[in-house]
């Protein structure tokens, strides 16, 4: 018989040791991740929330900021305008994205590679650059489309007016629909044809199968896309500044900008940005409610077969629709931007004697900041992408495998920055880290930290989506056979995720190159990025030089993304089975 006390001691020892080991590892991990997230997100955001309840000078508790922030009809109207904008963009972007994603992923529509490339082009186009393109296209008196209309019909007035809410919705939707597209198409690529076949065998036609089987299977992706385009639309600053201002209405972001005019009223701004936070929390709660208990895991270790649906003549209709969307988002704006970039005066039109390279010469040789600015943009964006992906992958893994208690808190923190409009986030960052002791104002560090926080949600969403599509069974198999978790991660997870991580890198890199709203408060004179320079140039309406700088931004971004995806052997838009 075993000695009782020895047994007890052994049990205690092994139990305790195991517990300590587990607690140690997981708690340390949890603490480390929490510390990073607290630095990046909690501290700046909490500082904003607290300051929304403080008196400016004394720091005493007060509700006066809320009274001032909401005590004006104009301020309330801006909130409503933002909601209208967000809903409009989300709906329009879904209408653009889902049919194209479906056609590319599931059907025999011709010209897929080209359409995919154009969607990518729409994705790299910053919304404010798209907005400038559309100002040149649909300015009420001078826009090309209106000029053509007037020439054709002899009318005295144009028909399109970009300086309107509809115009703004269109401009933002054409540059943000790629989010929904990427989410939907990568989800569609994972759905095998088996379930569609089952429906077909039971007598359902293509349309019915698509609407009842295929699309419902990718609901999480579509809803994710809707939420992201909604939040993106209400948080954008550049395009509304270019279009809403002349259209004489404000949205939340342009209204927030006014709080930062002299005298800076950070406290009121903080109070004014609270509804945005509330909306985001609500949206993610809704998403959970809708998706909650249903199972969407349709990817396992076994590869399902995927066949393309033959559309017959309808495939040309689909192509036509895809090209229409491409025209709105890429062909037309790019055409006029290129024209302006190489024009002496864009209003003089397409003629040889109007051609010049001077806009580029001016940027690269006379405007001495442009070169530094271009370099800054790409270095900061690349570093940001690495930082955001590493952090979000660690967190996504911890969350999806429930390694620590309260892991959902981590997940929430990761997506929280998306709701904080870039401007507000930047102000939180500015308040928290610009002054001593950290004294980061005017440094590259504060920009990179700010960008990392801002794009953590994208990095996290793609990492988590990647992880979610991988059934834990495969890791569990490793563990059951005695392999450690690290081994499972190294040998199973990383190889499976390599491509989606590289895709995620590009997904963060590109928006970072075009980020304006948070950059505008964090740049110093030596850390300017292209977006801020474009914004400064746009004040004067110097469209020729602006377009030239925009063209440089696009060309370099596309080149880097192309090299990147060539290196990882994967095409731009995260296609899985290429």
């Amino acid at each position, binding site marked *: 018989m075993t000695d009782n006390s020895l047994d007890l001691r052994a049990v205690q020892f092994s139990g305790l040791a195991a517990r300590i080991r587990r607690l140690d590892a997981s708690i340390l991990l949890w603490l480390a991740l929490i510390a990073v997230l607290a630095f990046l997100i909690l501290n700046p955001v909490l500082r904003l929330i607290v300051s929304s309840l403080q008196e400016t000078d004394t720091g005493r508790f007060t509700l006066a900021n809320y009274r001032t922030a909401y005590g004006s009809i*104009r301020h309330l109207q801006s909130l409503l305008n933002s909601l209208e904008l967000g809903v409009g963009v989300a709906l329009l972007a879904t209408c653009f994205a889902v049919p194209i994603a479906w056609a590319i992923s599931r059907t025999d529509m011709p010209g897929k590679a080209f359409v995919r490339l154009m969607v990518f082009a729409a994705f790299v186009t910053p919304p404010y650059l798209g907005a400038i393109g559309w100002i040149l296209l649909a*300015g*009420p*008196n*001078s826009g090309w489309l209106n000029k053509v209309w007037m020439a054709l019909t002899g009318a005295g007035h144009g028909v399109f007016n970009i*300086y309107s809410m509809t115009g703004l919705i269109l401009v933002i939707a054409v540059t943000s629909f790629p989010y929904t597209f990427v989410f939907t198409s990568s989800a569609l690529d994972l759905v095998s044809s088996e379930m569609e076949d089952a429906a077909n065998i039971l007598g359902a036609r293509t349309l019915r199968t698509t609407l009842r089987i295929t699309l419902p299977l990718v609901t999480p992706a579509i809803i994710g896309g809707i939420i992201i385009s909604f939040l993106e639309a209400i948080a954008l600053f550049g395009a509304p*500044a270019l279009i*809403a*201002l*002349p259209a*004489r*209405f*404000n949205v939340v972001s*342009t209204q927030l900008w*006014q709080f*930062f*005019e*002299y005298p*800076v009223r950070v406290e009121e701004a903080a109070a004014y940005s609270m509804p945005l936070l509330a909306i985001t929390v609500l949206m993610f709660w809704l998403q959970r409610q809708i998706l909650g208990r249903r199972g969407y895991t349709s990817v396992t270790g076994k590869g399902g077969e995927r066949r393309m649906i033959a559309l017959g003549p309808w495939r040309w209709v689909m192509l036509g629709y895809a090209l229409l969307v491409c025209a709105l988002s890429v062909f037309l704006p790019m055409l006029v931007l290129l024209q302006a970039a190489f024009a*002496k*005066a*864009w*209003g003089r039109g397409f003629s040889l004697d109007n051609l010049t390279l*001077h806009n580029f*010469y*001016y940027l690269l*040789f*006379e*405007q*001495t*900041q442009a070169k530094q600015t271009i370099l800054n943009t790409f270095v900061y964006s690349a570093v940001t992408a690495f930082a955001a992906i590493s952090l979000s992958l660690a967190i996504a893994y911890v969350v999806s495998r429930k390694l620590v208690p309260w892991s959902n808190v981590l997940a929430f923190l990761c997506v929280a920055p998306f709701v904080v409009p870039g401007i507000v986030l930047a102000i939180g960052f*500015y308040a928290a880290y*610009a*002054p*001593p002791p950290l*004294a980061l*104002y*005017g440094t590259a560090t504060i920009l990179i930290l700010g960008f990392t926080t801002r794009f953590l949600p994208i990095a996290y969403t793609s990492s988590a989506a990647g992880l979610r599509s991988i059934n834990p069974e495969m890791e569990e198999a490793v563990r059951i056979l005695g392999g450690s978790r690290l081994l499972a991660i190294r040998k199973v997870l990383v190889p499976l995720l390599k491509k989606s991580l590289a895709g995620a890198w590009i997904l963060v890199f590109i928006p970072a190159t075009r980020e304006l709203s948070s950059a505008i*408060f964090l740049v*110093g*004179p*030596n850390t*300017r990025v292209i977006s801020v320079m474009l914004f*400064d*140039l*746009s*004040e*004067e*309406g*110097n*469209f020729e*030089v602006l377009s030239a700088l925009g063209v440089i931004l696009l060309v370099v971004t596309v080149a880097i993304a192309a090299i990147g995806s060539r290196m990882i052997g994967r095409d731009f838009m995260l296609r899985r089975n290429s």
Partner: protein
Amino acid sequence: MFPIRRRNFILGSSAFLVLGTCGKALAQTATAMTPHEKELYEAAKKEGGELTWYTAQSDDITAQALGRSFEALYPGLKVNVLRTTAQVAYQRVTQEIKASAIQCDILSTTDIGHAVALKANGALEKYVPDNSSKVLDVYKNYDPDGYYFVTSAGMIGIGYNTSKVKEADAPKNWTDLLDPKWNNNIALGHPGFSGYVGTWALTLRNQYGWDFFEKLAKNNPRVGRSINDTVTMLNAGESAIAGSGPVGTLLESVQKGNPLAMIYPTDGTVLIIAPSGIMKGCKHPNAARLFMEFLMSEGASKIWVDHFNETIRPEVSAPQGAKSAKDVKIIRPTVEQITKGIPEVIKQWRETFGV
């Protein structure tokens, strides 16, 4: 040894500039450096050879020309030119002060109220440039304590697109802008951004009361940000009339061949007096002092005139084909009115125009 090498360098670099597209730096190389300037120049090179200049006083092109000219005059010094509207520049400067991380060395604003407020808060460095006694009398002594100095001036009138509006039909004075025939066809800047537009709005409020803007809003003008944006809108054919037309930018555009013309309103052209000052605690105080000397020099005024702005030096005459401030009827508010009035005007503007 050294001066000869330097001169060679200057000659060489200016020859290069002439061969290139801009020959504006050439004239200045002739003037010799005073001992004081030389002293500042040597000190500036030691403190890093750099200078950060936030300016709202011109369009980007003129600002860059000034920066390049300074660099040609003082080889080894580099000017980071950041052109924005006045309120944006001010916002950045106040941010820097709040974070106690001053990045800007010299602030050139178009809202003299900024200089007054910064001086009151102790944010400006006192420095009296040698050249400050050599400018035209009207631009002297705005701050007898020597914290900021007028470094440029410009006028605001009414601009129009000659291919859309006949000279006879064009507005003759400010109240003509209220004529309903200009509905949807007037371009304006925004006082919440542009210091020029702020002063312009204040001047017209003094003249006609805020009622003027209530009526102007009924004509549904297109509101941009910078005052220079109005010229772009005329060139594009988006608007027929620039309600706040910056004389310098507009006439430069005419010179480039655009179909524009300038009206000096019979009830007065608005004159803007734009100051510059050195930021206290800035990183390059000597380069900043040297740049203040430069901004008030004959050479800088030549560049301003080349770009159709006012000269502040008596040696330089007004640009060809342009009227100078002394040839037209001028209206302008006092510094006290600006300091107090522009924040009010911005608020009223937002109520009236919705943005």
